[in-house]
Structures are given as C-alpha cells and as structure tokens.
C-alpha cells in the first residue's frame, strides 16, 4: 500500500513539474559578468509575466559554443562576434548592458580617483618598464601626490576573462609595443606580475599588496573600495570612472546595427568618455523565431524598466539612442 502511495506521489510530482515547464521557460548561458543583472531582471520579469528565465553563467566562450550548438535560447558574450562569424553560425547579436574596466592601485596616502595615468605609462607599467612609483612620468602627471620610491607589483587576471580581453584590447590600441609583443585576448602572456583568479582574486591581491596595480571590473573596484585611478581618454582629458563617463562612452561609441553592433568600446571619442568600457552581448539563433520573440520581449521589458535595477548593481544601462537602434534592428530582423 505504502509503495503504491509513493508511486502516485512521484507521478503527481513529475506531472506538476512538467506543467510548470510548459508555462514558458527561457534558457540562456554565457558571460559571468552580466549574471547578477540578468538574474535580477529575470526575477522581476517572472513576477510580472510568469515567464521563467534561467541564465547559467558559464563564461563567454561557453555561451557562444552553446548557442552555436543550439542548446540554449540565447547566448551571452562579453566580446562581440564579427559579422562573418555571425553569418557562419547564423546568429543575431545585440548589446544588453555596459560595463567598464578600471585600473586599481594600492598606495598609501592616495585616495580613490586621485591618481592620474595616461595610456603610455599604464602600458609601460604592465610591461615592467616603469618599475617605481616615483617614476618621472607618473610624478609629472600627479604634481599634488606624494608617490613613494617603491617597486610596483603588477597584478593580472589569471583565468581567461572578458575583463582581460577588454583591458588588453585597450592596451593594444593605445600602445604599439603591447600590440606587437603581447597582443590581446581573454588570456595573454603578461610580461610581469602575478595572477589572481577572478575579479575577486585580483581585488584581494591588490588590497593586500602595498604598491600594487591591477585591473578589475568597475563594480568590484567600487564594492571593495579600491583606489581606482583616473585615465587620460582619447579626447585628452583625465576622467574618473563612473556612470557618467561610462554612459558618455556608450553614447559616443559607434554602435552600428549593420555590423550587428560589433564594437569594442575602448577609446570612445567623447570628451568625458571612460576609455576602457565594453558592452556585453546577447546572441540569438536566427532560425528560432518563436523563442527569439520571447527573448526579445524580455530584453525589451528590461530596457524599459530595468535601468534602476542595473544601476543598483553597478552596471551601466544602455543609452537611449542605442536602445532605439536595437529596437530598429529587432524590427528589421522580424524579432519583434
């Protein structure tokens, strides 16, 4: 009797689960960077519409692979795919949210945002050519600061990461030596320094090591109260990282719907643009018309209602002009 009861119970459970599944679920996978904001949006969206969105943060590489193999409804990647790869794998692509990478230092008597750096000196630091903090180049840019005669420790990301990709892309763009000797990518062979695992690893190493310099996602720098630096941007101004300078970069960056928004948001031309920003992208399989409509519905809702949530989590929402471009792109491709 007991066994029969258990069996019935099991069947009821399975059936009720299947019923929930049928309600509508969207599965996505990819970049770890936007995971907190996607899941926060998904939570709110679920409350309003009942649509369940599962997002697995398995890394950008995994996201691209999964959507190429059509095992998820959408993929997410921190670096944009070029038009020819999108063509080959039959994918749509559009940006979803903006983030930025900031250099962080650990210097006594220097507060967040006080230290000024230009691309050349940043590049030389990561090459190990500038060894001491009181190097004339740095001192000249920072007349008000008392910089110690201390050897600097360079800290980089040891695991393959979009953060490293954006950062090395920026260095390669501004510094010919970096481009020819090191190159860019999610993992590169850094000439000097030690590697921390993940943003949290780098943040922790920098916090713990006096006279160190590293780079992390802006959100991590902010949450861990690290001494982020100012950077000289393309227009020649020193800017502080923050919502305003990221938004400026996103607005002046040349996102083009014809190229499926392929763009590295480094060295944006705006007067107040933060030079090391980047969008994170959503990838859709071209032939899956039904699920694409549902995914687009979700992001359309998020673009309309999710900006505050994103800012709470220290992400930069897309500027209005870019949202308009994306909407046009959706309509043109029959996604909406």
């Amino acid at each position: 009797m007991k066994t029969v009861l258990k069996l019935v119970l099991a069947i009821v459970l399975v059936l009720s689960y299947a019923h929930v599944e049928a309600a509508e679920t969207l599965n996505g996978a990819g970049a770890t960077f936007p995971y907190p904001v996607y899941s926060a949006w998904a939570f709110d969206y679920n409350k309003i519409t009942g649509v369940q969105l599962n997002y697995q943060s398995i890394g950008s590489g995994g996201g691209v692979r999964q959507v190429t193999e059509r095992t998820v409804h959408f993929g997410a990647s921190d670096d944009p795919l070029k038009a020819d790869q999108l063509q080959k794998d039959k994918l749509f692509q559009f940006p979803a949210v903006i983030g930025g990478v900031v250099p962080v230092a650990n210097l006594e008597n220097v507060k967040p945002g006080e230290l000024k750096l230009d691309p050349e000196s940043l590049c030389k630091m990561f090459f190990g050519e500038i060894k001491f903090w009181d190097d004339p180049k740095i001192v000249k840019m920072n007349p008000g600061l008392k910089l110690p005669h201390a050897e600097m420790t360079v800290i980089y990301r040891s695991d393959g990461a979009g953060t490293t990709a954006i950062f090395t892309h920026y260095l390669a763009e501004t510094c010919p030596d970096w481009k020819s000797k090191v190159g860019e990518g999610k993992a590169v062979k850094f000439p000097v320094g030690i590697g921390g695992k993940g943003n949290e690893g780098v943040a922790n190493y920098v916090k713990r090591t006096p006279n160190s310099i590293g780079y992390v996602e802006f959100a991590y720098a902010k949450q861990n109260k690290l001494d982020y630096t100012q950077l000289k941007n393309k227009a020649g101004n020193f800017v502080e990282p923050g919502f305003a300078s990221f938004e400026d970069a996103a607005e002046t960056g040349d996102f083009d719907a014809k190229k499926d928004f392929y763009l590295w948001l480094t060295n944006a031309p705006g007067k107040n643009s933060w030079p090391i920003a980047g969008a994170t992208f959503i990838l859709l399989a071209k032939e899956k018309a039904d699920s694409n409509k549902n995914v687009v519905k979700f992001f359309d809702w998020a673009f309309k209602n999710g900006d505050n949530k994103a800012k709470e989590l220290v992400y930069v929402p897309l500027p209005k002009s870019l949202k308009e471009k994306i909407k046009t792109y959706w309509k043109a491709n029959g996604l909406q």
Partner: protein
Amino acid sequence: MAALSKKNPVDLIFSSITAIASFSVIIFIFGILYVLVSESSLAISRFGIIKFLTSTDWNPVTESFGALTNIYGTVITTFISLLIAIPVAIGIAIFVTEISPNFLKAPIGIAIELLAAIPSIIYGMWGLFTLSPIMSNYVEPFLKKITAGIPVLSILFQGTPMGIDILTASIILSIMIIPFTASIARDSFNLTPSVVKESAYAIGATKWEVVKNVVIPYSKLGVFGGIVLSLGRALGETMAVAFVLGNNHRITTSLLDAAATITVTLANEFAEADNDVYLSALFYLALVLFVMSFITLAIAKFFLLKAERKYSR
C-alpha cells in the same frame, strides 16, 4: 555449492551486477584516455611530444604552448607539500597509537577525519584570506631573514614576500594531504601485534625504541601506501592551489615566486579557451597529468609489491 549458486537466478543477477560495476571502472579509464588523446591530437601534431614537454612558452595569443612550466609547478608543490606532510602525519599517527592517553584518541582521530572532509574550495578561501597574509607578514620575512647570506637557502627565499607563491600553496596542500597519510599510517601502526610490542617493552626497550625498531618496520608498507595516496591527491589538487599560487607560467628558483600547476592552468583557462589549438593544448596538458599520475602510481605499486614479496618470505 558452486553448482547450486549457478542455478539461483538472484545469485546470477547479483554476481553480474558486481562484475559490471568492476569492469565499468576499466571502461571509464580507457574512455577518458581515448577522449584525452583524440581531443589533444591537434596539439600533439602541432607541437610534438618532446617540444611540448620541454617548452616553457605558454602564450594563447601567439598560439604557442609548452607544458614545462606547468609540470614544474606541479612537481615542486607536490614535493614540498610531501616534505612537510609526511613527518607531521607520521608524528600524528605515532602519538595517536602509542603515546596518547585513551581518552584523547577518539577526538584526535575525528579531527583528522574532519580535516579530510573539508572541501578544497574552503581551503582555497582560507588560504587566500587568512594564511596568505600571515605568510607574507610574518613567516616569509622571517624565513628571508634567517636564510640571508646562506648560499643555497637564500636563493630559495628570494624576492618580495607576497604570500601568494609556491610556499603558501605547498603548505595548504600539505594540510590537505595530512589526513590521508595520518589515518592510513595510524591504521597500519594499529596492526602491529601487541605481543611483539610487549615483548620489546619486556626486554627494556623505551617508547622511542619500540616505535623505531618494531612499529615502523612492521607497518612500513601501509605508511608507504598512505604516502602514495596523498601524492596522488597533491598532484591533482586544483581549487585550493588556484587561489594562492599566483598562476604564473614561469620557472623560478625562489619559493616566494608565483607559479602554475597543470590543474590550475586547466581550471583557469578551460572555460574561455576560444580557439581550437588552445583548447587542444589544454587537453594535451590534461593527458600529461594523466600519464604522470599513472607513472607515479605504477612506480609506487611496483615498490609495494616488491617489498611485500620480500616481507612475506
């Protein structure tokens, strides 16, 4: 009896299930080996065997990969961790079996087993947030100070004490493998017949002499087995090491420098390896570790068998 069990269908099912379970292990091993070889074939054809094993270059941008830095990191951390762990573990085992009063035996035994049950990610976090500051602020400056000027030793402790280096990683590893060695050593010590021990005490041997001349020779094999088990664990340990090793593809002479092990490289770079050669090189690296572990275990087994034969004679 055998004929009877053949007729019994339950018995037949039972014995075939156990057989399937055992053979599945062999199938798994060959399956894994097959996948490793086939996935790494691209890297094997590109870099060859000798060149891959002897090159210190690991550069995803230029797609040039060599395993030597990773092999070096794996071997050195394993070696140092065994150097620390073996004496401590054997000390624990001797204390628990021969010296400690009875009421202490159970709590110490349970503590050792608990140490073995802690997940490695927790060791990693603990290492990064707790051990590594202690190392960089106190232990490593002290080691630098006392070795300064001594020819070979001072080279071992060159550089800035960061707490994120081979030494810290080895210490974490040694803490992780102590439970294995200690509990197996303890069990083997316990197997020493009390008659033999009591006879030794009866002829006036001290505790030290009994341990040295009776218990340890009697249980050598078991202890050796425990060491091999922990060697296997140290070779393959990943998460705990990834946090405190600094992940640097370089060969260094100083224990205060960052390094990379095979498993750490795999864990760090696998998820985002976005081109075929890169991915294949990572599989190749895994194959190297597979072969390394296999050879280590084979050597250990060989010595164990040899000793066993000698012993049983």
